[in-house]
């Protein structure tokens, strides 16, 4: 009798097995029905799209299972629209309310992060075991508001520290069944990434100024009184290209640092996202989406999921089967949905 319990020990490569054509149909039907139902269907559409993407994200022979009830998501969306839409509309007549809205959002931010992480974790399962998130509101407030204020006071100097604390907070309070995650992100990791990004940015600015001045001087010597149009266009393209690369560099670096610093009992993750590959994916996806009037969005999503999975490896010193489940209580979607509305990035 083969021992199924030890079959999944060791190293396992993540893979994404979804196909762009299949996902496109789910995506376009969701978009179409959402439009026809004035957004009501979007809750069902979101669950169906996510179920496809999760099920095709596979490791050690199994995919992930997204279990969120669409009605909870719809409730959350309605609450978000009524709350923020109502205050925003009222703010037209009573400007003070707009200030209140901002204060409310800042105060709500930690709750949004905690509630949406909890909702998403509770509704994600692997091999019949659901994830969980037990982050406390007080700690979230200390990180998001406390350190957030420090970042402003220090003119952004503490931003890398803030990002690391944020990542640690999110990672460390997750659990898989009964197995608590631990965060082991090197202190300097985020600092080095943001410092490098800053240096790249400064270098580009200096280089493009030197380049423009040099070209102007050349144009002056050749006796033309007007600089060629290429002079104003080329530095702009160069600067946007560098912005894109820096963005990808930060995403790859912080993503790798966070995932590689994530310990789940006997499990470690090995993420090796590359800045160049990510930059290329962002650029080509954006171009394809624009050129196809949005139709390539599904294809772009699948491409990105495939790349991320390719670059993620699970290493475990004990069979996955030894990880135990935990009793779970009911979920509440409002946190996740309010944060969806404002696109708060709380993912790993």
């Amino acid at each position, binding site marked *: 009798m083969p021992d199924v319990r030890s079959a999944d020990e060791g190293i396992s490569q993540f893979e994404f097995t979804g196909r762009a054509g299949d996902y496109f149909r*789910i995506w376009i039907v969701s978009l179409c029905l959402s439009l026809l139902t004035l957004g009501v269907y979007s809750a069902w559409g979101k669950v169906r799209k996510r179920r496809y993407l999760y*099920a*095709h994200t596979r490791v050690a022979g199994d995919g992930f299972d997204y279990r969120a009830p669409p009605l909870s998501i719809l409730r959350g969306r309605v609450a978000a629209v009524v709350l923020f839409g109502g205050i925003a509309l009222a703010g037209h007549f009573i400007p003070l309310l707009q200030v209140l809205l901002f204060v409310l959002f800042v105060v709500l931010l930690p709750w949004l992060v905690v509630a949406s992480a909890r909702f998403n974790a509770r509704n994600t399962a692997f091999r019949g*075991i659901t994830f969980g998130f037990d982050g406390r509101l007080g700690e979230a407030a200390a990180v998001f508001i406390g350190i957030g204020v420090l970042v402003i006071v220090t003119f952004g100097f503490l931003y890398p520290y803030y990002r690391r604390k944020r990542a640690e907070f999110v990672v460390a309070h997750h659990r898989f069944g009964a197995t608590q995650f631990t965060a082991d992100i090197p202190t300097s990791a985020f600092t080095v990434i943001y410092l490098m990004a800053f240096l790249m940015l400064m270098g580009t600015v200096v280089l493009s100024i030197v380049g423009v001045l040099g070209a102007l001087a050349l144009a002056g010597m050749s006796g033309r009184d007007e600089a060629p149009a290429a002079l104003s266009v080329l530095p702009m393209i160069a600067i946007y290209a560098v912005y894109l690369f820096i963005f990808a560099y930060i995403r790859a670096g912080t993503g790798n640092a966070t995932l590689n610093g994530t310990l789940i009992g006997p499990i470690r993750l090995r993420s090796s996202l590359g800045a160049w590959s990510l930059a290329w994916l962002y650029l080509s996806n954006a171009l394809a989406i624009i050129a196809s009037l949005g139709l390539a969005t599904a294809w772009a999503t699948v491409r990105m999921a495939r790349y991320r999975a390719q670059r993620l490896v699970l290493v475990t010193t004990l069979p996955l089967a030894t990880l135990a489940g935990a009793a779970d209580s009911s979920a509440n979607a409002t946190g996740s949905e309010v944060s969806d509305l404002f696109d708060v990035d709380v993912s790993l």
Partner: protein
Amino acid sequence: MTSFAATLFDGQNAARWPVRVSASGDDLLVEGEFDALRIPRAAIVPDAPVPGVPRVLRLRGGGAIETRDHAAVESLWPAQSALARFAFRMESSWRAAAGAVVLIAAAVTFIIVVLLPGAADEVADRISMDAERSLGKYAFGSLEESFLKPTALPEAQRDELTQKFASFVADDPDGRNYQLVFRSAPGPNAFALPGGIVVVTDDMVKLAKSDSELLAVLAHEIGHVRGRHALRLLLRQSGVFVLVTALAGDAVGMTILAAALPTILLESSYSRQFEQDADDEAFAHLKRHGYSPQAFADLMRRLQAAEKSRTDDERFFRYLSSHPVTAERIERAEAAAR
């Protein structure tokens, strides 16, 4: 008897058990490398099917049975929500996907072509006269800074025209205070701002062979003001956000509108419909005051000839670029004169 291959997750540990599941009376019989399990079908909650996603049968207590055999699950639990069945059918078919693309394109086109202009017109009708006046004043201020220079016309001529204009617009039913402003700018031009500031350039005054010709073109501009055409054009081009803020009487929204107005006036042309409406308004107004619309036709002909001979690049500030004149419009003026 239905039977299918599946994976059992027991909810206790993250173990995977390859199993064979078969229906046996009211129970599911789950057989694998363990003592066979009997699970009452009533204790199982099947998921909503999504094409390409394994079916998940959720068990009470947290476990799950996962299988790729959609058909078998479908035959055991045929009663699903109609919505899920409908979505599943749509998502499985390329033809439905193509239909969805067409529907979305049609809906987006409808929103852009019908809904937004309709909403823009609705909002334009609701803007108060006070707001219209301040919008016009603000736009006039920025035009003065960038395009308009003081007039070089003799004061006597201006006074005479101003007087004629005053009696020409004295009976405005909407209660606007029209104000004629002489300015110098390249080329013959005339335009009116919301609220009733009517600007005429020195070249236009010179091009007009009689006062009735000048009043004809001014009557046309007044027609645009009465129909709030500039506001409509502006609102149609400014998108949903500005529409909402303009409707709410929001100061920020109005400032955005006012800032965009000069450019709209100079660069965009009025639609055929707007021109016709303004023409009709103008012809009626001219006749009421004892002038013939023929004057309008004459001036337009001369304007066309004058612009044809111009070779400069200042299309930006040409009367005909913002007021396309067609042979049809000239004919209509002549018909109205008869």
